């Protein structure tokens, strides 16, 4: 953020950068800190899932559909049709969801930043081309594109990740483009250009750091959107097929509710709610904290 600091340095006391200031503003609300902790906890859970330290959700821990029992950790949230622990399933689902969210962000963020940067910086024909591509994408119903693209890769987890990544860059691209168009006329860019900096250097060294705050907010929204979309896609039969996923648990919920088995529904709804809430909240707080107009 040091570059951004330099631009509006006049507005800030000495030694206080925009980044530090944003952080101070961000931590002012205790809820924000809690939310960051929640996200970290989910990420940790996902990591542990990969190292195999989370108990296998496939094992049978009790009778079929046994209600929550506080005496044994595996039974805290009861069991499902096969006597599997709902808690372990949620853990395994966290691994799936976080992986999915991060993968989607990993695909869509660089794509969006790059397309937006190129379009905004060069303008002209390149800009027209990028604009055309994203106009086409937003003109087609989102769900249709996701399903169609995931069909190409044969459904399943990886397929929907790629699909959401390939479609999800549009919003970020639009914002990055607008920001680049503004910044490329700024003095510090013009000065560097006069000093002989290449386009590549200008884009990546000088302007890009100034739009990173947009990317940060977009990332949290992208991850959140992906986690929510997985639920819907799984309900439609194109989501995660094998293994644990929250979407699958929610799809099973109507049948379970009907026979009075409420614990999987409550468990998964709350787990899903927590992470989405945290990401939402952090995204919002970041946006407010990083908004240079509020300095």
């Amino acid at each position, binding site marked *: 953020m040091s570059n951004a600091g330099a631009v509006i340095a006049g507005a800030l006391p000495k030694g206080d950068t925009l980044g530090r200031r944003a952080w101070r503003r961000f931590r002012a609300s205790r809820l924000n800190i809690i939310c960051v902790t929640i996200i970290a906890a989910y990420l940790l859970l996902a990591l542990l899932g990969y190292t195999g330290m989370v108990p296998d959700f496939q094992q049978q821990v009790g009778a*079929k559909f046994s209600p929550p029992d506080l005496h044994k950790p595996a039974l805290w949230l009861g069991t499902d*049709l*096969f006597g599997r622990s709902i808690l372990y399933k949620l853990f395994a689902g966290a691994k799936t969801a976080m992986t999915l969210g991060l993968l989607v962000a990993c695909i869509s963020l660089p794509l969006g930043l790059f397309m937006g940067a190129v379009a905004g910086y060069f303008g002209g024909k390149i800009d027209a081309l990028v604009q055309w591509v994203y106009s086409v994408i937003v003109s087609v119903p989102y769900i249709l594109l996701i399903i169609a693209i995931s*069909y190409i890769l*044969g*459904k*399943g987890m990886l397929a929907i990740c790629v699909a959401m990544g390939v479609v999800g860059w549009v919003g970020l691209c639009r914002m990055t483009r607008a920001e680049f168009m503004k910044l490329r006329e700024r003095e510090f860019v013009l000065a560097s250009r006069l000093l002989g900096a290449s386009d590549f250097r200008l884009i990546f060294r000088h302007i890009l750091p100034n739009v990173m705050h947009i990317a940060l907010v977009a990332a949290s929204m992208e991850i959140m959107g992906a986690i929510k979309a997985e639920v819907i896609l799984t309900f439609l*039969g*194109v989501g995660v*097929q*094998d293994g644990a996923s929250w979407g*699958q648990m929610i*799809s*099973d919920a*109507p*049948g*379970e*509710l*009907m*026979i*009075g088995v409420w614990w999987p529904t409550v468990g998964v709804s709350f787990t899903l709610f927590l992470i989405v809430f945290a990401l939402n909240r952090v995204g919002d707080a970041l946006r407010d904290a990083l908004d240079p107009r509020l300095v």
Partner: protein
Amino acid sequence: MNRRELIRRLPLWFILVMLASFNPWISSCSCSSHGGLDGKTKILRRVLTEKGKSLDPHQQFDAASADVVVMLFDSLFTTHYLKRPIEFIPNLAKSMPIFTDAGKTMTIKLRDDVRFQDGDCFQGGIGRSFRASDVVYSFTRFADPFINANSYSLIEGLIVGLDDARKSMNARGEGKYSYDEFSVDGLKAIDDVTVQIKLTRATMVPLQVMAKTIMSIVPRECIEKYREDFQFHPLGTGAFKLKYTNRLGDVWLVRNPNYHLMYPSEGELGDAEKGLLADAGKRLPLVDEVYAPVIGESQPAVLKFLRGYFDWIGLDADAFQRLARKTDDGQFHVKDEYKDDVSLYAAKDSTSFWLAFNLKNPNLGKSLKLRQAIAMTINRQGFIDDIINGRGEVLDTVVPTTLSSNHRDLGFKWYERDLSEAKRLMKEAGFENGSGLPEFRYLTSTGSMPQRMYEFHRRTLAEIGVKLKMEAVTYSSYLQKIDSGDFDLITAGWGADYPDPENFTSLLTTYARTQGQNYGSWSNSRYDELSDKTKITPPGPARDELFKEMAQLVRSDVPIVPLYSVIRVGLFPKNWVRNFKRDLESGRDALHIDIDVKRQKEGFSL
């Protein structure tokens, strides 16, 4: 009006324009609400679980369509509503056919008192009488390759000259011919009430197929008027007439007052005590209207049923768990809290499932011991109990228990579940505890039920170290993978096209491989030979011997593991629905059901 004003009123304008543009449609539809029971009209309200492919009898070949088509159209024959096992009876025919010429000529006398439903495709809007020429017309249309892509194969090669007609229609191209141009030798109207059908060999299959909805009789005038839209204006001789339908497949039917059939006067032992014969001799149908919306999700359907919005509902696994239970004696009961309001039916369906091995897989194909070990591990009763709440019967051959020559009739037994023997076989095959065996791909379509089935098999096979991996793919790639043999294990199922065991046993022949039915590509020349013999042997001990030898061949080579046949369970209100005896063979329940409108309006006491 200044600019701001304009903006402020915009939403209002927008709504007005939108409403105005759709107005014609609003006013054109004046269907009454389904909740509106007036206490006089007898409305049977039932749930359909999916939309059928078409209401044109010759285009459809799926259970969902047949459910509705059977209420709108009639075939020459049908099956008895009350009697089990299946007994064929005449419908549009006056009597059962007379076979001459060593069983190769079928002479069918037709009823002379049947009229088509009224409709604007007839002169003056009054339905005309049904004649023998309608049979010839309908059966020729049944053979039209551009109308019927699916079900013709059931009688392929059986009626003299019909195959040739189908071929020349195909050669002429769609819509470039009229059916009169093809005079089929085997299909003749002798006079207005007599049809003669010549068969290529002595067989009962055409008679059985003629009892199904796919060979229903349609009126030529309406086909010619509506052409490809006939499915949206279906009209036949059936007990009901279509009043309303929509894209989701919801249908609303009204009674055909001129329907020709009467309520049967005899039934099975015990039917009289149950009051199923009280309406004997009454003209069908007994209700005035049938309202049948499609509700794909089971939860809303069940919730609505419990509110008293439906008079009949089938149960899936979750709904069963909620509303019913199975006792140790194998009987199904509705749960006690609903006992006073709701009755339960359980009917055996002619549908069977089995696990097929893809013999192209090097391990599965080469190692008989591996296949036997798997066959001894699969827990079939456990599967039925856990996955489908006991709504099934273990099968030892592919033939469901509703049909003759099933495993009980033959006294035939499949492998018992025996883990230690299975483990020994695994060791002999060189795969002790699964070592050296790759994961097998279990192919399935997506959905919650297939997922549960896979999960069950994964667990049981893990006991001998066989690892399964689920491959859930889109429907068309599922079909494609089956065709190209791109899988290792699959659960295959079959519903009877006609009630004959041969319909099931022939699925494992080499010929069935070319038809995309023998998924695992098993091929055994002795089995093929026996299968051909069963087609020409009349039912009896000699035929049973053939079936038994075929079953032995399957047992010794284990290309498949027979799993179970299905029992359908459903509910209906005890106090106002009468004459209900689930008839899965012909599906004509709605014609026979009677409703006590007063009690129906009162609803449940729940």
